[in-house]
């Protein structure tokens, strides 16, 4: 894990866009106050608008990947700040053109900006790499969930002995034709010998993980949530569905905005990638027995 990254990096940014220029200005102003730490190679600009805990590190880091969510981001940040007395809110803006970053900064979040879109869920990994809390809570910038609904995830990690606290939401399954993503989540959990997890997954928000879980799973894996999920289970971490938030309902609004099909394929592909990883860790059968099948007799 990296330490508390409160540094600023303004080097090697080719052709800053208007958005990132603004960030740079802020960053320069910030540098005067904040001592610069060692900068990782790919580190983007980090801006701390409001210091979290004056002394020591925050207990909870809330990570919010954001593209263009100006309508909701302020409310989401406010809810995030209330999940724990000691909290840092990290907003990872990527490809943002609607001023979400400025709004986030104004509302006291640490903002990490990238001029271009990073791709689905990469922001989670970036945010996690910059986080310093003992518990990391992942939510979306376009989905306002009250703090009271978010606290159980954080509490399970901080005090409940849970490494990965999932949203106990398996999607609409009371019908014959379920969405492919729901199907994929159920299938992956079963292959991981965790059918009890049903359709819950690190793919869905909200969920929280411990900093030690992050260390073991790897921040890079968070960019492919089903892969992170598979790693968590296979590493023997305590993965548990702790609280239900019906994100399906909240997602309905989103569906109208996004064309859902490409995303559907992306997420199913992510699950296949996780299954592929599973076979690399075990064998071609995912560690499942062949039950004394005498294959040579079939040849």
């Amino acid at each position, binding site marked *: 894990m990296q330490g508390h990254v409160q540094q600023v990096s303004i080097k090697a940014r080719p052709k800053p866009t208007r958005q990132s220029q603004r960030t740079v200005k802020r960053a320069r102003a910030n540098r005067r106050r904040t001592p610069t730490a060692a900068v990782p190679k790919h580190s983007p600009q980090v801006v701390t608008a409001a210091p979290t805990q004056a002394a020591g590190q925050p207990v909870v880091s809330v990570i919010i990947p954001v593209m263009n969510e100006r309508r909701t981001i302020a409310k989401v940040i406010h809810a995030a700040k209330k999940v724990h007395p000691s909290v840092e809110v990290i907003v990872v803006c990527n490809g943002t053109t609607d001023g979400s970053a400025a709004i986030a900064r104004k509302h006291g979040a640490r903002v990490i900006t990238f001029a271009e879109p*990073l791709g689905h869920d990469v922001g989670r990994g970036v945010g996690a790499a910059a986080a310093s809390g003992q518990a990391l809570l992942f939510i979306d910038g376009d989905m306002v969930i009250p703090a009271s609904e978010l606290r159980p995830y954080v509490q399970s990690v901080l005090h409940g002995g849970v490494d990965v606290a999932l949203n106990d939401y398996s999607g609409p399954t009371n019908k*014959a034709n379920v969405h492919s993503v729901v199907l*994929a989540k159920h299938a992956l959990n079963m292959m991981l010998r965790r059918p009890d997890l049903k359709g819950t997954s690190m793919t869905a928000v909200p969920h929280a993980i411990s900093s030690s879980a992050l260390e073991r799973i790897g*921040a*890079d894996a968070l960019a492919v949530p089903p892969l992170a999920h598979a790693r968590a289970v296979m590493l023997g971490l305590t993965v548990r569905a702790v609280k239900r938030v019906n994100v399906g309902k909240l997602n309905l609004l989103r569906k109208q905005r996004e064309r859902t099909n490409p995303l559907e*394929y992306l997420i199913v592909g992510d699950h296949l990638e996780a299954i592929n*990883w599973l076979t690399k860790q075990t064998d071609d059968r*995912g560690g499942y027995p062949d039950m004394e099948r005498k294959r040579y007799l*079939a040849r």
Partner: protein
Amino acid sequence: MQSRKSVRSSRARGKSRRTAAAGRKGRARAAKSGRTKMASPYSGKLQSVFHAGYEDASALNKSGWSIAQAGAADARHRMNARWTLRCAGRGQSGAMRMKLLAEGRAYADGFASALDLPKGMWQPVAMSKSAAAVVIAVPGMNRAAIKQLQRLPFQDIIVVLENGTEGDFAELRELPDITIMQTGDRLGADVGRAIGARMTKADIVLFADGGKETAAEQLALMLATAEAGADVVMADQTPQLGPFSRWDDRTRIRAFMNWSLGKPELKANSVELLPHVWSRHGIEKVGVSQLAVPPLAHLTAIRHKLQLRSIALQAGASGHASVELSVGDHIEALQTAMKAEGARLSFSDQLRRRAITGGTAT
């Protein structure tokens, strides 16, 4: 085909004008003589088909053929051949295939009636291709399941008796016209399918569960679909599944694999389940040995773009495999696909700048 049919039926008519007349006046004659077997239990179109069957069998009797010498299996074979000729050119659509199966039963009843056999014995299927059945009988088999198969036009019924007891074997021996493959050892799940498949060169091979009775009428539609050109005919279990929340684990994994392979329309149907049918072309494309790991054969069938069809079965489909075995088989199949097509199969990452997190998550 059409011309052969007309030649054959006109000859039949010529030779047995009296019998044909008797068929037409069957009811009246039967009432007078007290014999009821010629009376058609059908009406309308089915009645005329019944009489056609009666005529054909009567002509056969006249030709010197005798059921006492030839046996019931030969009678069924001849009956089905005649029915096939009569159906030439029909049976293109699914609805017509269903209709022909119903007509076939009337025909078979008429045919049986002229041979003093009880009705309901046979379910003919108009087939120009040859068909065989491979029955997987692990201990706990049900003879009624095999008896249903004997009502169908199979040239051979191969029963793979895996690790059966003496009692199982004796019970099977009482059934006529079947080939029994008794294996002393356990073969392991589904290996018997490959072993049984090697025993036949038939154009169409039905794989059946020896422990579960499925009505011949239902299996007949699977054969007719294969006859019409399908390479793989599976049982469509979708109607029995209900909502997803009630699906079992294996069903979910099958559906996931179909979806991942770009065949969502197959739902949770798979050759993992019995009964199902393979064409010779399909078996050759996939390779007999793959039949021992059904999800692998399923994958290969899809990737070879074989014609896969699903047909609703009232009795549903069954699988012997344990959950563990089934999950492992499907992972193995997916892994096989991934080796050829990449970890994400056809579902690319699109834009995702993974390196930005400093790692190489793959």
